[in-house]
């Protein structure tokens, strides 16, 4: 038997075809992946509207939340973040007029975003607006 005749016998007869049926399955699997990934990637956090400019001067009370490297202070008194949440909840900021919800917040020295984030979250959860006091003057 020659080489040619053996090859001919092995080859299927008819037109060569690319199997496209599985493409649809692959594509729909990819769609399901994108749908799931899109809904799972929702960001968590909080929203806060920091008053810009002069509005910050209309602070609710004289008390300031002071954040330093050595701790957190409510006025002069050192507090934990849990205690600060309690103090702010007691002020019932959410029931007040929107113009009187500003809580002064000042960070001094080497403060990291983690601690700052917790304080902003606490003020926001209590219904307040953080009036950020920049070092060397009011914002």
């Amino acid at each position, binding site marked *: 038997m020659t080489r040619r005749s053996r090859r001919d016998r092995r080859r299927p007869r008819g037109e060569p075809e690319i199997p496209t049926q599985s493409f649809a399955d692959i594509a729909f699997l990819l769609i399901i992946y994108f749908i799931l990934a899109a809904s799972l990637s929702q960001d968590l956090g909080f929203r806060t509207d920091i008053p810009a400019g002069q509005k910050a001067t209309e602070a609710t009370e004289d008390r300031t939340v002071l954040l330093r490297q050595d701790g957190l202070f409510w006025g002069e008194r050192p507090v934990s973040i849990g205690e600060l949440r309690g103090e702010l909840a007691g002020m019932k900021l959410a029931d007040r007029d929107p113009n009187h919800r500003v809580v002064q917040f000042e960070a001094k020295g080497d403060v990291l975003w*983690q601690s700052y984030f*917790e304080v902003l979250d606490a003020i926001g959860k209590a219904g307040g607006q953080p009036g*950020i006091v920049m070092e060397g003057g009011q914002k």
Partner: protein
Amino acid sequence: MTRRAHRSRVRKAGILIPVVSMGDIAFLLIIFFILCSNFAKKAGKTVEPPVSPELDSLPKPRLYVAVDAEEKLYFQGRPIGSAAEIESELSQKIDPNDSLDARTVIFECDRGVRKEVFEPVLEAIAKGGGIIGAVGKEGTRKRP
């Protein structure tokens, strides 16, 4: 003609569902989902968000500002030089009459970034007319 003979004729005719076009439709849908998703804006940065016990869901990011662990600033996923540039970009994109969601600027910052870096950015967002949507992770912080 008997019933058996009729059935065998139907089987011979055969029903073909055109599945080739299904692939085309599916790939069009994939392209649609890729274009609609937001993951491209967040790619290429190492940000370890701060933790807090209770956080809310934030809207889909339309405007996105980030500060990575190396304290580099990003606006809409691309590096930006300073907070002042962020303010000018935002004031062009935000209309004060927009809805709350449209004015929300997603702010993703690494938990270890210093105040000197993130505070001017917060100020820039506020001055640019945005509402800060600070991104965090639910959990409790391990204190030393």
